[in-house]
């Protein structure tokens, strides 16, 4: 009798653990895997940073109450994730240039004939800020956390919550919608340290450049003054071998 009880008890115990194991396995298989937010962010960055070293032109058209208010043109040279040189090409700003070396930033003004050190807050200046033009490697500047999956229009998107992890980041927090199929940026919301929702963006148009899909046009909406938005158009994207001394902070060439 005692022996039968012992066998029964062992059988019940094994059955219970087997059931538990099967349950855990089934539940795990049923839950969709949480995507790797870091890998997604890196993949999405490649749509704006297709090569380790490249140049591109950025045209920013600003609209106020639906009317074209101002056009600006920039030539951006980028090497790696830490070095960006922006030359201002529109008539009023000709001769100015901006240099970003990691967290450090200088602006050269022809009036002063010398590079002037500027603070991280100054990278927020402008309708489309200096950071919007020059700092587009989010994986370097932000720590991503996967939030959820949701639809934006007809697209299934992952929603990532990005928090600034370094001083050089343009915004304190970004909510970032990436297309599930290929991690292509679809939409973004930008927040200040105070938590204020300052801008939103839609990533509107992509094109194939030398076999790589690259962002061609995106729109920034001002969430403080709701009647204003800026369209950023990229053109002339090309890989180029850029000398290190282009990114020297003491550079004083007018052009």
């Amino acid at each position, binding site marked *: 009798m005692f022996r039968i009880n012992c066998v029964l008890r062992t059988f019940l115990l094994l059955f219970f653990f087997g059931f538990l194991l099967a349950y855990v396995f089934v539940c795990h298989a049923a839950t969709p895997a949480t995507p790797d937010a870091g890998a997604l962010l890196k993949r999405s960055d490649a749509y704006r940073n297709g090569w380790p070293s490249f140049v591109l032109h950025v045209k920013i058209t600003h609209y106020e109450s639906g009317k074209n208010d101002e056009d600006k043109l920039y030539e951006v040279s980028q090497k790696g994730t830490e070095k960006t040189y922006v030359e201002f090409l529109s*008539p009023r700003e000709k001769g100015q240039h901006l240099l970003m070396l990691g967290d450090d930033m200088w602006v050269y003004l022809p009036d002063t004939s010398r590079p002037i050190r500027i603070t991280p*807050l100054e990278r927020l200046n402008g309708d489309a800020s200096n950071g919007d033009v020059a700092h587009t490697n989010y994986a370097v500047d932000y720590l991503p956390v996967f939030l959820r999956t949701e639809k934006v229009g007809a697209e299934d998107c992952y929603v990532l919550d990005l928090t600034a992890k370094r001083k050089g980041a343009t915004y304190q927090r970004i909510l970032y919608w990436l297309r599930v199929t290929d991690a292509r940026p679809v939409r973004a919301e930008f927040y200040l340290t105070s938590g204020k929702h300052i801008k939103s963006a839609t990533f509107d148009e992509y094109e194939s450049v030398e076999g790589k899909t690259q962002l061609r046009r995106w729109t920034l909406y001002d969430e403080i003054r709701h009647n204003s938005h800026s369209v950023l158009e990229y053109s002339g994207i090309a890989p*180029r071998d850029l000398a290190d001394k282009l990114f020297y902070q003491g550079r004083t060439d007018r052009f």
Partner: protein
Amino acid sequence: MRLRFAITIAFGLCAGPLLALAQDDPPSEPRHDFRYTISAINDATFYSSLRPPLPPSANMLNDPSVTLLQNQLLLEPSFTLRYRSRWSLASSVAGLADSYRGLSATDFDLPPDNPVASAALNAALEPYSGTHTQFRVKEAYGGLSAGDFDFMVGRRIVRWGTGYAFTPAGVLDPPRDPTNPTDRLNLNQGRDMVKADFVHGPHAMSLVWSSAALAPANANLHDTTAFRYNILVHGFDTSLIAGDDRGGDAFGGLTFTRVFGQAWELHGEAAWREQGAVLAGAKYITPIGVSFIGEFYAPPNIPYYRDRSISPLAGRQHYAFLYAGKSRLRELPGWKQWDLSGSVVTNLDDRSYTAIFDATRRFGSHFSSYLHLEIPQGSKTSDYGATPYSAATSVGVRFQL
């Protein structure tokens, strides 16, 4: 052994650039690159209660209160031509037509029947009447870039100082006017020089020999040899400067800038030339983009640093500069195209000061207009009180292409 070492070094210095020249550019790089700007400015300045420097022989009775109008028409083309990112040719010139109205000999109480005094007065007023034209070569230089080396020869504006309104260590800088630190009309001229730069990683070295042979006679410049070592380390953009003025003094200097947090920038300069001079400054920017700049400057009272109005016996001077400004008042409806700023520069020893106010309004992509107001205050023998007018009001239109 020493000779062999010297030959090796010399070969290295020569071969480095030549080897770099032999390298091919990436195919995607354009061969030629031409960039230009053209700027035209019409500036009208009204000097209130002008006191022109008059000869003692004129024996004027009253201090005349007249307003002088100085109209300046400037045309400033600049260009840079680059070939294969190696060779460059750059120039920036200014044509200036100055005309004056409002001041004549009749504004002064001349003793009657005194032809000598009348002639002296007319001679003193000559610079303040009629129209004068000038052509200024601000920059004109050729450059060769080879590997980590850059060479240039010609006239060029070089600024090594980090100060906004003052620069004790900017040995090659154009004279810095704290009441006009950004050179509002872009009239500063460079120095004639041969310059070699070596940039590698975070290190940069510059060696300059500058000639004073072509400088204007009143510029009080010497031939200068100067060396600068610049490095960015732990966020400090730091430079060490050393050099020698021919027939003058040897000098040394240190400059730095550093950003702290999101909104603060600190900068400073220290220089030694007979005696030490120091500058300490900071910039703070508010979340809505209002900039504040403050600087404290203590130069020794030696000829190199002394302002004309300061007595050689006055001792070390102390200056303060404060600035507040906002570019693009986009927060106010209808004010997005406006920039406003105000600043004060003061001599803390004689308590004289000049207050400055600037307003700029943009029109479209090419035009802007501005108002610039300067009000000096202080006793007539003080640093800023000695300014020969009670207020200077400038209005102008600028076209940029």
